């Protein structure tokens, strides 16, 4: 390496080699598929949008997000913090701020351009779709360049970076979509998008120079008096009654407020649509469904931070000595996390349940909700309708909580290879398995009937795996004395009771002619979380006592 440019490029390559290798493999698969199809002389009739989406759009979209994180140094920075996320260690290198901003931007925008051009050239596209060559590459490069500039800028307040970046990127997207809507030609699109990269470069250079000389405004002092007022509250000065309560407070302060905050930010946008589409009941119903799915959907993203055992923004996945040296058992540390997530889920749902009736009333769309409830009562009868409503609500609340905690057993292990491997496996499975659904639907009744006949066996195998895994986890928990016998027995009894209650409800609600009771029993066993949550203390213990 004879130049700073080569050294910076080497760092990106060395640090993210596995991601880049995976991307290269994906391009190879695309190229091979295309070559095989063309060699056989088959006409390419890729008319199934879902298959195309999951074979091309999902991997490319994932790579796009990955490149955003890589080239902004986003993996090691605190996006919500005030400070620039540009690595401070690089500020002492004997290069100009222009070079510090310019080289990562050049590599990032080039990578984005290569991503699009390779996809355009190598992927099998649906017939009749003439995807443009240049401007999507420019759009991707512009989004990356502006994200870099915004990520490297120091801000006056925490969280300001996220708000400004989202607004800026949305405005770029809106301009691009408007241009597409009005069928702008490729040269017009290029003319619209090309100036973004140099403009973003100047912004990034300013950002790096500001961060380098520690020139960041601080508006936090303006709000410092708020902190002093809350310090006067008696609750803030009380002592915690137990270590478990103190740890639950720690977890709540660390991660618990993220989900309610995200829901709180999204709800006004979603519910404001009710005012726009108040005259279209179908859209009102769809908006309400989207609102109800907001907490579980957002929980997927929050789970990534909840299940981290190290501080946010840290490269390491290991538990910090500050937490590892707490005189608490690993089971108690996990229990605190579970309590904080329960509180977080309930707070989020409280927001949703208060906001929906309020928005329905203010927008004058209450009748849609009332009509829907009336129709359900007519079909199922009052008791069943109430039970279905409550069960749906409980299921959504549980689903939100489950999303928050189901990856704890991976994150708490503190092993980078396990965390990164699980993300890779999940994305790969998603990419490979989702096209199967349209394939099954296309291949008609025969395939569905075969699947339906095999469903009890599939479920039975899954139940066997779940019970075996649960038994192994229980034995390990007992052997290394992470949980007492009494706690294990009480936990098992609670799980049994939950399964029985769900089974009873399903038998009462669903016709057993169509859904045999053994099938419902299998569903109930699989639906109630057991293994992944009970494996979390084991994972933490593995991390804590390496």
């Amino acid at each position: 390496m004879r130049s700073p440019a080569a050294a910076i490029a080497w760092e990106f390559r060395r640090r993210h080699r596995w991601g880049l290798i995976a991307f290269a493999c994906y391009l190879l698969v695309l190229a091979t598929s295309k070559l095989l199809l063309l060699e056989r002389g088959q006409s390419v009739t890729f008319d199934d949008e879902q298959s195309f989406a999951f074979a091309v759009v999902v991997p490319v979209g994932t790579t796009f997000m990955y490149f955003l994180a890589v080239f902004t140094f986003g993996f090691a920075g605190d996006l919500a913090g005030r400070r620039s996320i540009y690595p401070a260690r690089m500020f002492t290198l004997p290069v100009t701020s222009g070079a510090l901003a310019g080289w990562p931007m050049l590599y990032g925008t080039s990578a984005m351009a290569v991503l699009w051009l390779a996809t355009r050239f190598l992927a099998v596209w649906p017939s009749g779709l003439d995807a443009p060559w240049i401007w999507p590459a420019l759009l991707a490069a512009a989004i990356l360049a502006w994200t870099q500039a915004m990520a490297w800028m120091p801000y006056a307040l925490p969280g300001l970076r996220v708000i400004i970046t989202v607004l800026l990127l949305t405005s770029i997207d809106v301009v691009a979509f408007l241009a597409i809507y009005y069928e702008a030609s490729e040269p017009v699109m290029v003319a619209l998008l090309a100036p973004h990269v140099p403009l973003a470069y100047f912004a990034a250079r300013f950002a790096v120079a500001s961060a380098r000389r520690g020139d960041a405004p601080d508006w936090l002092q303006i709000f410092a008096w708020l902190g002093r007022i809350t310090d006067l509250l008696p609750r803030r000065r009380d002592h915690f009654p137990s270590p478990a309560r103190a740890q639950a407070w720690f977890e709540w302060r660390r991660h618990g407020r993220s989900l309610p905050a995200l829901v709180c930010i999204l709800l006004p946008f979603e519910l404001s649509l009710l005012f726009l589409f108040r005259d279209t009941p179908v859209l009102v119903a769809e908006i309400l469904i989207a609102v109800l799915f907001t907490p579980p959907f957002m929980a997927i993203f929050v789970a990534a931070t909840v299940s981290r055992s190290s501080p946010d923004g840290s490269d390491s996945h290991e538990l910090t000595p500050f937490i590892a040296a707490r005189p608490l058992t690993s089971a108690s540390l996990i229990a605190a996390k579970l309590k904080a997530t329960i509180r977080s889920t309930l707070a989020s749902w409280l927001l949703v349940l208060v906001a929906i009736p309020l928005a329905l009333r203010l927008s004058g769309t209450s009748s849609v909700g009332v009509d829907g409830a009336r129709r359900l009562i007519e079909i199922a009868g009052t008791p069943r309708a109430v039970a279905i409503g409550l069960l749906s609500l409980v299921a959504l609340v549980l689903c939100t909580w489950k999303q928050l905690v189901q990856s704890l057993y991976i994150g708490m292990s503190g092993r980078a290879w396990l965390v990164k491997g699980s993300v890779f496996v999940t994305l790969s499975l998603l990419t490979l398995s989702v096209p199967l659904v349209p394939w099954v639907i296309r291949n008609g009744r025969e395939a569905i009937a075969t699947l339906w006949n095999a469903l009890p066996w599939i479920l039975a195998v899954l139940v066997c795996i779940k019970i075996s895994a649960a038994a192994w986890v229980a034995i390990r928990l007992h052997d290394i004395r992470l949980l007492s016998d009494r706690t294990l027995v009480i936990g098992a009894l609670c799980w049994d009771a939950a399964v029985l209650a769900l089974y009873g409800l399903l038998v009462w609600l669903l016709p057993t002619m169509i859904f045999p009771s053994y099938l419902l029993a299998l569903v109930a066993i699989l639906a109630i979380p057991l293994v992944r949550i009970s494996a979390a203390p084991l994972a933490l213990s593995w991390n804590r006592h390496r």
Partner: protein
Amino acid sequence: MSESVINVSELTRRFGAKTALASVSLSMPRGAVYGLVGANGAGKTTLIKHVLGLLRAESGSVRVFGLDPVADPVSVLSRIGYLSEENDLPGWMRVNELIRYSRSFYPAWDDVYAEELRQTFALDPTTKIRNLSRGQKARAGLLIALAYRPELLVLDEPSSGLDPIVRRDILGAIIRTIANEGRTVLFSSHLLEEVEQVADHVTMISRGRIALSAPLDVIKESHRCVTVRFPEPRLRPPAVAGVLRWEGQDQEWTAVARGGSGELEAAIVGWKARIVAERFASLDEVFVAHAGEAAAPAEDV
């Protein structure tokens, strides 16, 4: 002084191909101030992490207060005050929140003492940890490690990179801890003058092995620095039993020798050389002699 607070027996730990600790055994008596010295990467932090139960013994055993810190972390950790080299206090907490949070874990927490320490260390209770200087963070860490008067105080490189005033606070805390009913202190450092000031027992670790472990007085009394003037200039010093390290050039060479001076004096007479200066070796010189590479390899006898 008979009861051992820490008992490590034949402890071995490998990280991949690297052996971090090799058959380490030590016993730490109650009421002692135990200095753990060694070069960076020698294995000090690895040993401390085993004591805290943050690393599991691959082979051998670790007992703290007679308990296995991995099997029974609550009983062990509730009696230990720990100040980490990494200083990983949560930056989002205010100082008063850190105190409020930490006190709930230790039934013996002394509010009066905690407040006294906070005032001594000049820590503003409403300041966030992330806004404290490095020295202030170390003081905050020390406060929560001391305020419950732990039976065992473990300090892992507590003063590395800190200014002399903070270092003085830390040493003062160690001395106060000893004064308080003879509690036990284990602290690792490569600042040997600090170790010399407070430790009454020193263990030197080199490349994962214990190079030397003895009371500080014994170590100092049993090592001498002898400067010898040879009749002719020499490229390499002669090898003599008991000499750990030679340093010098031409005619004048200085030896760090262990044990009695009989063999060295006899050899000096044999070489027709003379002793220019002789004194007790400093801990620094003893450490370099045991842990460092030989400054000049000796001739074969």
